[in-house]
Structures are given as structure tokens and as C-alpha cells.
């Protein structure tokens, strides 16, 4: 069963085309890692999939709902962890989770927030302003925020950016614990991390998909060569 389906997706910013005829699908429970050089269109793609940007044309279906027709239904099912934590710096950790939990209509809000704070090892700082947190702690709280409403699809845009090794372990553990019943799309520059987690890998360069394979069909050396050539702009 396909959880995400993208057909003939194009995106323009003014006259500049940043995504060109993007077609792919992601099966339920799969983990798609997307690689590519800076400016390739990876983040724009994730923004479109997470309903933050509108495609210029093409069709995107997420969890059975068509983007543009039923965005609210899609938003209930997705979570986004990006390199920006999407947290209010002058609210406490708990207040941030309570705020987002209420917007999503999460049942058992207090218990869910406490559980997630425990999972990201921030229970002892739950009543502290996020402004006083380190980058790593903010990112851990951002993970809790994204999981508050128990989304079935998670978009990860450079989630390991700025994390210390301990925070990396926590994120790895969280992904591992929910891996079985979630679908993931991750944008990353970290080839080793992205390949170790994924079930499918994709490379985007200059707005086009230049590589998309099931991980079991991938020759890692060949993949790394393709990726390095794309980063150097030799494709």
C-alpha cells in the first residue's frame, strides 16, 4: 500500500523551476532517504509534502488524501522534524508540547507530554523556558513536538543537524522504537546515516530525481559515486 504518491510534481519560485517532473511513491512503513547537493530542491519537496508549500502543478497524495483538497486530513497524519525546532523560545518545554497537543486535539495531553519528555530525557527541564536550552536539547524537544499527535508519517529535514552524539543516540532510539508502524521521508547530507536507516534511497539534483532505488538493489560504492558526482555538479 502506498502512503505517499507524487505524480508530475513541478514547483516554480518566480521563473526559477526548483522541482522538475518529480514522480515517486513511498510504501507504508518504508523509510525513504533523500540526498542531494545544496539547492537541489530537497527541502522544497519536504515542504510540499508537509503542506507548507503549494506545488505549481502535479498531484500529491498522502495517506489517501489529495494535497490541495484535504490538507487538514493530511496534517493530522504527518509530523515534521526540521533543522528549525518550530518551538516558542519563551514558552517552557511542557507549554510547547501542551500548545501543539491542543492544536492537534491530543487526548490525554498531560500524560502524552510527560511520556515524550521522558523519552527525550527532558523531564527535569520541563518547566524551563526553551530559550535556556542548548541546540541539542531544543532539537530533542522538537522531536517530542513532532510526535505529540502520534503521526503515521514523519518528515525529517536534516534532523541530525547540530545534534551532539547523545542527542543522536536519542533520535536513533526514537526512530527505532516507532520504525515498524511509521513511514519516514528523511532529507540528509549524511550519507552513512541516511543509508543505514533507509529502505529506499533517492538523489535529487537541480530539481530532478537522478537516482531512486530500493536499498537492497543498491550498490553502496556506486551510490556514493553518484552522490559525490551530484554534489560536485558533474551529473
Amino acid at each position: 500500500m502506498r502512503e505517499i504518491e507524487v505524480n508530475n510534481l513541478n514547483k516554480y519560485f518566480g521563473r526559477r523551476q526548483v522541482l522538475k517532473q518529480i514522480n515517486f511513491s513511498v510504501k507504508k512503513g518504508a523509510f525513504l532517504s533523500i540526498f542531494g547537493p545544496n539547492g537541489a530542491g530537497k527541502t522544497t519537496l519536504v515542504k510540499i509534502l508537509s503542506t507548507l508549500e503549494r506545488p505549481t502543478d502535479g498531484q500529491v497524495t498522502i495517506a489517501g488524501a489529495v494535497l490541495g483538497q484535504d490538507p487538514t486530513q493530511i496534517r493530522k497524519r504527518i509530523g515534521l522534524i526540521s533543522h528549525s525546532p518550530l518551538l516558542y523560545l519563551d514558552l517552557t518545554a511542557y507549554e510547547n508540547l501542551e500548545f501543539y497537543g491542543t492544536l492537534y486535539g491530543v487526548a490525554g495531553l498531560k500524560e502524552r507530554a510527560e511520556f515524550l519528555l521522558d523519552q527525550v530525557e527532558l523531564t527535569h527541564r520541563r518547566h524551563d523556558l526553551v530559550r535556556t536550552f542548548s541546540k541539542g536539547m531544543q532539537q530533542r524537544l522538537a522531536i517530542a513536538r513532532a510526535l505529540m499527535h502520534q503521526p503515521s508519517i514523519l518528515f525529517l529535514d536534516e534532523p541530525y543537524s547540530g545534534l551532539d552524539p547523545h542527542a543522536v543516540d536519542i533520535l536513533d532510539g526514537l526512530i527505532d522504537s516507532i520504525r515498524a508502524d511509521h513511514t519516514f521521508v528523511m532529507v540528509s547530507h549524511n550519507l552513512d546515516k541516511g543509508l543505514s536507516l533507509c529502505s529506499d534511497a533517492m538523489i535529487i539534483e537541480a530539481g530532478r530525481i537522478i537516482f531512486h532505488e530500493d536499498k537492497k538493489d543498491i550498490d553502496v560504492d556506486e551510490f556514493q559515486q553518484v552522490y559525490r558526482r551530484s554534489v560536485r555538479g558533474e551529473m
Partner: protein
Amino acid sequence: MLPLRQLWVILKKDILLELRTKEMILSMFIFVLLTMLVFDAAFMADKNDLTTFGGGLLWLAFIFMSFLGLNRSFVHEKDEGCFDGLLLSPIDRSIIYVAKMLGNLILISVVEAAAIPIFTIFFIRYPYYAHWDHLWPFVVGVVLGNFAIAGVGTFVATLAINTKRREQLLPILGFPLLYPVMGPIVIISGTMMGGKIGALAAKQVAGSMQILVAYDIVFFVAMAMIYDMVLGE
């Protein structure tokens, strides 16, 4: 009930953030006080009796003060991409608009509640506040005027949120949109503070009230309806 809870939680968050940072309220209050100092210097020759044209000067200060605050009203949302977090949530976009607009309305009203007595003490010689017949139209006029400013200001501030020149965009778009109600707002406040309410003035005030109410309803409904378009949906 969920939409109401969503509206309340956004409003509560905005008020809580403002109470903690005081970013908007302090700058707005200081601005309005400084404007009054300028009035004091400018109208010293008239012994600071602004009773005749107090309405115009009062709203001159309030509109600039409101735009100063409204420019800051999305600062928290821009920090660390919080506005994206809000947009990711499964809520109707009109709820975001109404909540942000109410938050701005409350802040503008709080600053004005402190500024009006100061303005009255120093510049208005007629004790309009002691006459109920003068006070209630004055208060209703202020509330309706604030509603218009907060409604239009919140809408335009959202338009400007992702632009480089957002501090210029708000007055450039906001003033023309508010122009139709500036006259009625000034007429109501000025007439009541002046205390000369004949039949003609009473008719003018009633007409101004009607214009303000109609403007507030039309703009509020229209802006709430098209807010999702402003957000690119």
C-alpha cells in the same frame, strides 16, 4: 468545541509570550507617551487645550502606535520557524487569523486604556468621562476603531511576514485599507471629548458608528475567509 479550544490556546500563547517578553506592549506604550510629549511641545501656545481637535491627534498617535506593535506581532512566530509549526497543525486558517487578531486587539486596547487617561488629563479640558452620554459612545468608538485596526493590521502583517520589507509593507497597505474608517473614528472620539453634542453632531456620530460597524463586519468576515489564500493555500 475543538476549534474554540484551538482559538483559545493560540490567543493564550500570544498573551503569555507578550507578558513574558513585553516586546510589543512596552514599545507601544513608550511610543504613545513620546507622541504626547511632542503634542505638549507643539501645542504649548494654546495652553495644551486640544479639546477641539483631540480626536484627530489621539488617533494619529494610536494608529502609528498600533502599527508599531502589529509589526512585532509575528516576531515570535518567525523565531525558530514557529509559524510553520502553526501551519502544520490541522486547524482552519481562519482560526489562526481570529486568534492573532484578538491578541492584537487586546494589546492595543490595554495600551490605549493606559494612554487615554493621560491624554485626557493633559490635553482635554471638557470632563467627558463624567458624562455617561459622552463616555459610552467614546468607548464604543474606540473599541470599534481598535477592531478595525487589529483586523486589517493582523491581515497585512501576515501578508508581510515573509517579505524583506515587512515593516514598510504594513503602513503602505494598512493605511489605505483603514482610510475609510479614519474619519468616522475621529468624529466619534472628537465629538465626545469636545462635549458639544447638538442634533447635527449626534447624527454625525450615529452615522459614523454605523460606518464603523459595517466596516468591521465586512472586513473581519472577508479577511477571515481569505486568510488561507494569504497563507498560500
